[in-house]
């Protein structure tokens, strides 16, 4: 490169030449400086790299908006941005990249013609590129500008902007850069998950729909002939299942978001809020249309229709009643089946169980919308049916965390079911023995699983820890609290048994109170439960005395 530079001769000679020739020479020199700069940067000689890249931009500065120079100028700025990021000066990197971005926009507005590609400086006339090729290369350079900016914003923790730029990068990959369908689809699906964290359901759905459509472009891998091809086939199936999992999260998040909007302070559906939101929704119809037009959409024209068709299969607005919730639930359930096809228990324990947990969560949130208590109970029963068998087969030695999660979820579900049965029972004239049996059995099962969870915290010598770790503190306390409450709910006509239950209940409430006294830091984790526990510790002994007196009146 240095040799070519020598051949071009000293800069002073440029004075004597005509303007056009001088410009051409400057352009060629700049291209060389650029290559030298990039070379030095890649071999970690940052100072030298910077020197050459700055020389390049200086040469191009007066003509940077011209067709001959704009592309090279932008690429030089891209590389200066990268260079400064390697020096950990991310703000400086930002200025170079944003300047490149501004230049592109200005050029496209004022000129717009496909600019010359830097490589053309050293091509013979017949080798020169077509306008189409030039445009492609130019757009690719700009796509990289945007991609680098996305990373800069990420490092500066301007996450929303980073996501926006990632989104645009993806869009441009479809339009200009060329892409691998499977990889693109996976990236779009991952971006959708980001949008879920921001409750941007329209954008999330759009990303997922595009992901599904583009993925189907990947086609079938050739049938497994050798080991490598089989591996590829497996990978393809796995990617498909992973996209399905992203859809599951979408449906789940949408339903849970709706729940948050609709629930009252005891976690039940508030009918007033429901009518309020329904009325509001009618008004927002055109707001939505405006938003959609503004949004960054993927879509070359042929893609648009397929993506739209995909989007129409599921809503992107929060459901406000059972009917709407059920539709979203069913979409989610379908994707559960699809994901489980690949992520089977035998082979993918962790993934499989996470999918089943999501399925259980779908039922749980759907139950919220269901008014009828019996039907609600049935939904919770479905959760038990899918979680219990998996839990039974799991070896906690290898899957401790999941094992604990399942124990807790099973306990909570039985607890929920018990509460529902009690509510149903309260509506009847009097409790029949069948309902009583049911309530007790559910309570016992809930206790069983809470106890299993608490046992999992014991050390190898079966001793319960003195002080609980932060990550298990709240669940352990809640487990103790619920067990206390459950023993209080058990129904028995045997007075002696009732006393025993109350005693056990008292012991568990006392544990909470004592623990929080010993470790005051723990209080913030279970404030509400602690309050109630203190009350019960005060009340129970008196109640027990009264019962004892009733049973043995002659002592």
């Amino acid at each position, binding site marked *: 490169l240095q040799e070519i530079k020598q051949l071009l001769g000293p800069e002073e000679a440029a004075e004597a030449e005509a303007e056009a020739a001088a410009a051409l020479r400057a352009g060629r020199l700049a291209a060389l400086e650029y290559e030298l700069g990039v070379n030095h940067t*890649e*071999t*970690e000689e940052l*100072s030298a790299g910077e020197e050459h890249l700055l020389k390049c931009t200086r040469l191009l500065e007066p003509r940077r908006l011209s067709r001959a120079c704009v592309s090279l100028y932008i690429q030089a700025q891209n590389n200066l*941005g*990268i260079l400064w*990021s*390697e020096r*950990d000066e*991310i703000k400086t*990197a930002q200025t170079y990249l944003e300047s490149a971005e501004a230049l592109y926009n200005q050029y496209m507005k004022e000129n717009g013609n496909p600019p010359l590609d830097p490589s053309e400086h050293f091509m013979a006339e017949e080798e020169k590129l077509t306008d189409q090729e030039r445009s492609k290369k130019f757009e690719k350079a700009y*796509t*990289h500008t945007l*991609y*680098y900016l*996305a*990373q*800069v914003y*990420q*490092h500066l*923790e301007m*996450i*929303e902007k*980073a*996501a926006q730029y*990632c989104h645009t*990068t*993806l869009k441009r*990959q479809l339009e200009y*850069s060329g892409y691998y369908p499977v*990889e693109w689809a*996976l*990236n779009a699906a*991952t*971006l959708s*998950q*980001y949008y879920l*964290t*921001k409750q941007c359901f329209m954008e999330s759905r759009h990303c997922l729909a595009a992901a599904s459509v583009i993925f189907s472009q990947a086609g079938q891998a050739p049938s497994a002939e*050798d*080991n*490598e091809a089989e*591996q590829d086939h*497996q990978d393809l199936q796995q990617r498909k299942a992973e996209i399905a999992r992203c859809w599951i999260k979408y449906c789940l998040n949408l339903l849970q978001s709706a729940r948050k909007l609709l629930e009252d302070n005891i976690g039940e559906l508030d009918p007033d809020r429901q009518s309020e939101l329904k009325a509001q929704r009618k008004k927002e119809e055109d707001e939505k249309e405006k938003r959609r037009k503004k949004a960054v959409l993927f879509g070359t024209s042929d893609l648009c229709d397929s993506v739209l068709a995909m989007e129409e299969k599921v809503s992107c607005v929060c459901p406000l009643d059972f009917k709407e919730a059920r539709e979203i639930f069913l979409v989610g359930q379908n994707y559960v089946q699809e994901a489980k096809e690949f992520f089977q*228990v*035998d*082979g*993918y*324990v*962790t993934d499989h169980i996470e999918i089943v947990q999501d399925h259980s969560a779908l039922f749980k949130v759907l139950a919220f919308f269901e008014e009828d208590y019996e039907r609600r109970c049935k939904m919770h029963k479905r959760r038990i049916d899918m979680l219990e068998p*998996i839990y039974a*087969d*799991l*070896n906690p*030695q*290898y*899957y401790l965390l999941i094992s604990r999660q399942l124990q807790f979820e099973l306990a909570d579900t039985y607890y929920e079911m018990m509460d529902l049965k009690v509510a149903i029972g309260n509506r009847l004239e009097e409790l029949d023995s069948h309902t009583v049996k049911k309530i007790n059995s559910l309570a016992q099962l809930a206790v069983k699983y809470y106890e299993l969870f608490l046992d999992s915290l014991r*050390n*190898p010598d079966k001793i319960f820890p003195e002080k609980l770790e932060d990550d298990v503190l709240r669940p352990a306390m809640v487990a103790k609290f619920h067990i206390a409450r459950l023993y209080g709910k058990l129904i028995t006509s045997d007075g002696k048994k009732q006393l025993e239950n109350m005693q056990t209940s008292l012991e568990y409430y006392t544990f909470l109170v004592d623990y929080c006294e010993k470790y005051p830091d723990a209080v913030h984790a279970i404030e509400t439960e602690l309050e109630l526990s203190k009350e019960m510790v005060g009340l129970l002994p008196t109640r027990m005395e009264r019962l004892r007196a009733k049973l043995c009146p002659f002592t």
Partner: protein
Amino acid sequence: MANVKVAVRVRPLSKRENAEEGRIIVEVDNKVAKVRNIKVDNRLDGPWDSREKIVAFSFDYCYWSIDPEDPKYASQEVVFQDLGTSVLSGAFKGYNICLFAYGQTGSGKTYTMMGTPASVGLTPRICEGLFSRQDDYSEQPASCRVEVSFLEIYNERVRDLLKQSDHKKPYTLRVREHPETGPYVQGLSQHLVTDYKQVVGLLEEGIAKRITAATHIHDASSRSHAIFTIHYTQAILENNLPSEIASKINLVDLAGSERADPSYCKDRITEGANINKSLVTLGIVISTLEFADVQ
């Protein structure tokens, strides 16, 4: 309760470092390793800013292996006496042990783990230890079974280094999870060995099959992780009833931990605030968005 011990070993200067007249800035003092920070800011034009700062790190074991003539020199034997013997004693008791070698390419991981024919490393010595214990046992002949497997992880694929396959490339395996027995590598070949020579033979066979890629720092380094696993089962009599003690020893030689240089390792990304040049890494950038925004 996990028992974790960390050791550091200082290697001699390489040919290249000697040629460039590199300075040794590490010092070892019993269980503390000290590093002298003599960073000179090359953006400053002024006089040399020789801010020498000494940073100290403490370890469970520190090995000074720069010069064999040095009285403080820690040889392969010394390293084995500390680390290898505790691996063995754990295995004899039925514990599972994992030994990791971690460090930059060219820092001497493979030398420490495998060694050279003239100076064998931890892995062969540990194997020898397993077999020689057998012979020691004159009173109660504890019969034992030793099975080994050797795998390599490269580019997200797991390969069996001991599988006799027809193709030139080692066979790709899948990592699966079983609900009862936990995670495992499906189809990994297990080889029963009865003496030390066999083990060394298998080790050499496996090493030969490893995928190596030349980096600009070290000639014969590798970009893959290698895990040599020994399943050690002892048959014993406990209260006059036959019983088994099974332990697993995992000897792991990790790939070079250095910052990937984009011009040489194109499919790895750089850490820190550096911008990744290729769109190949878009997926990684997107996936960190989800967790970056904590409200």
